């Protein structure tokens, strides 16, 4: 096994990552990095985190053998890591619990977050309520309109939701606005970023908090089937659930790591969010990574049926894993993801999130060409209750 110890001290994954922010944020990022590095190695903090993950989040999440779906697909065995069973319904809470605990240790009484579909906003509002902190969530006004239920959930949990009217009024603009809040209120405010992007130390820190997913799999897979899987498949928007399951597997070089991006209406249509498949390197939101941009370096609008994958950047560690060849990145369309969504509902009694349905769709495609003694592990990163309106609308119904 090769040792993998990225990022370097300044947050670089090869040419990617780093700290591309205005000077006004540097001291806050330095303080955050120092606090995180101290607590990361603090057994008391780790014990407290483990307790929270067990009793509040409900970890460990099980691995489930999808027997009927495997039979329907025909080919390799399909296993699901059940992050959909976590409190709040997705992997996002692994990270927000960790960051909220960090905020508390740093003495911050106010947390802010950006959100696209609202999942990270809900996970942030949840932990803010749990720890008694004020919570402000920035959300593009387009998303506020499309995700009324999650907006209501955040409000029930005591958070303030601020609609963002600038730019394309979606996730990337919410992130810009959260950064502006942070730089203005940096003394008492902790910014909970929801994915493995942003300036150092966020990509590393969010990955570490989510890597509990992959660590559990490393132990669970041999118990269940006597060995590690042949391939691990996860969807990639910003990339936090994928980084969480990939990271502990990076040194296991005989395990293929496959990230599945949102192909939207197809790459050729231009309506997609497949940053690694169709983008090029640049700098956005504090790090160097692959971006969807025009020839002048302006960020372009993305499209996906799944709001959680609808982001024009991607975590810098994924950019590095792509270039180094350790991970492969593919994409599936809205229609393929929807088909997989329905397959899992009907064959396993599990309603997956539309984000996770992208991973399911590609895993099925992969399984068909593999022998039945092969094993594919899919990160079922979230449940699909939040997607009822979207799916119904697609089928010509209004709820």
């Amino acid at each position, binding site marked *: 096994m090769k040792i993998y110890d990225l990022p370097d001290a300044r947050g670089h994954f090869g040419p990617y990552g780093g700290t591309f922010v205005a000077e006004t944020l540097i001291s806050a990022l330095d303080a955050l990095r120092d606090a995180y590095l101290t607590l990361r190695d603090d057994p008391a903090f780790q014990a407290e985190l483990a307790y929270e993950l067990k009793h509040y989040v409900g970890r460990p999440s099980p691995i489930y053998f999808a027997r009927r779906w495997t039979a329907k697909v025909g080919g390799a065995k399909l296993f699901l890591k059940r992050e959909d069973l976590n409190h709040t319904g997705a992997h996002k809470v692994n990270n927000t619990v960790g960051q909220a605990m960090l905020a508390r240790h740093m003495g911050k009484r106010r947390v802010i977050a950006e959100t696209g579909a609202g999942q990270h906003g809900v996970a942030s509002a949840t932990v803010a309520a749990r720890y008694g902190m004020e919570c402000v969530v920035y959300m593009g006004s387009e998303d506020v309109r499309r995700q009324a239920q999650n907006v209501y959930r955040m409000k029930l949990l005591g958070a303030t939701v601020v609609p963002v009217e600038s730019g394309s009024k979606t996730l990337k603009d919410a992130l810009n606005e959260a950064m*502006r809040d942070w730089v*203005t209120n940096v003394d008492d405010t902790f910014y909970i970023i929801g994915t493995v992007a942003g300036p150092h130390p966020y990509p590393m820190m969010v990955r570490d908090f989510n890597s509990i997913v992959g660590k559990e799999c490393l132990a669970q897979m041999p118990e269940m089937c006597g060995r590690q899987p042949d391939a691990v498949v996860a969807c990639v928007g910003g990339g936090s659930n994928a980084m969480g399951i990939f990271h502990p597997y990076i040194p296991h070089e005989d395990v293929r790591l496959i990230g599945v991006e949102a192909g939207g209406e197809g790459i050729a249509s231009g309506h997609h969010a497949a940053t690694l498949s169709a983008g090029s390197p640049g700098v956005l939101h504090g790090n160097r990574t692959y971006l969807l941009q025009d020839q002048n370096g302006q960020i372009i609008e993305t499209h996906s049926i799944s709001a959680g994958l609808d982001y024009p950047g991607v975590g810098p560690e994924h950019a590095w894993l792509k270039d180094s060849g350790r991970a492969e990145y593919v994409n599936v369309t809205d229609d393929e993801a929807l088909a997989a969504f329905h397959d899992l509902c009907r064959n396993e009694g599990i309603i997956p999130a539309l984000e996770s349905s992208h991973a399911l769709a590609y895993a099925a495609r992969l399984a068909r060409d593999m022998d039945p003694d092969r094993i594919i592990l899919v990160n079922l990163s979230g449940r699909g209750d939040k997607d009822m309106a979207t799916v119904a609308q697609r089928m010509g119904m209004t709820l």
Partner: protein
Amino acid sequence: MSRIASTFQQLAASGRKALIPFFTAGDPDPATCVPLMHALVKGGANIIELGVPFSDPMADGPVIQRSSERALKHGVSLLQVFEMVRSFREQDGRTPVVVMGYANPIERLGFERFAEVARQSGVDGVVAVDYPPEECEELVLALRKREIDLIFLLAPTTTDARMDTVSRLASGYVYHVSLRGVTGAAHIDTAEVARQVERIRRHVQLPVGVGFGIRDAETACTVADVADAVVVGSRIVLEIEAAPAGAAPARVGALMQEFRSVMDCGAR
């Protein structure tokens, strides 16, 4: 000597401070950019900071965000901004021009090409908001080769050690961000600015400009007492936004004159 250095030298000789307006190139439309630049110079500006519009201006408040969006509606690119500077240079070979923007349009062009086109267009300095000193080595080299100044932002939270790092990389002037937050936010605390400028001078030998939050001529005058340059951004952009079609150059020219006369009365 560079245009920026000689500008500061001449001002110092006459006991005056530099007045540096900022606006976004292409706001309200590309054709008005060069007339705006000339009007600002005529009104008393010593250096012009020309904003490069970007889709995700993370460090800017709502006023400059809106100006960026207006410019992008016209599809203004970094190369077009350089073209505007070239056109300005046809009539003005004396006033330094600094382009200010975010990293990604520069990355897209590549450091060498960016620096080369900047030089050919008559650009004197660059402020790259989201390239802190740790991340800009290649950019510094590309610009130095062509004698273009890289101007750094310094914040109240910048440590002394970082100021020393910036001092090794910076040329032209340094830009003190006078408050926490984004451009155009609250009013500034002038006593705190004085303390910060004094701290910067212990580490950096270059002229010190102060910006972010300077909304009126009186504040500019107070800041000019302690700094070498006053940067006025959101206030100018608001004037452009409020001006009826075709009136923006005259309006900002008059605003500049007001700042200039109040600042110069304050100079003793």
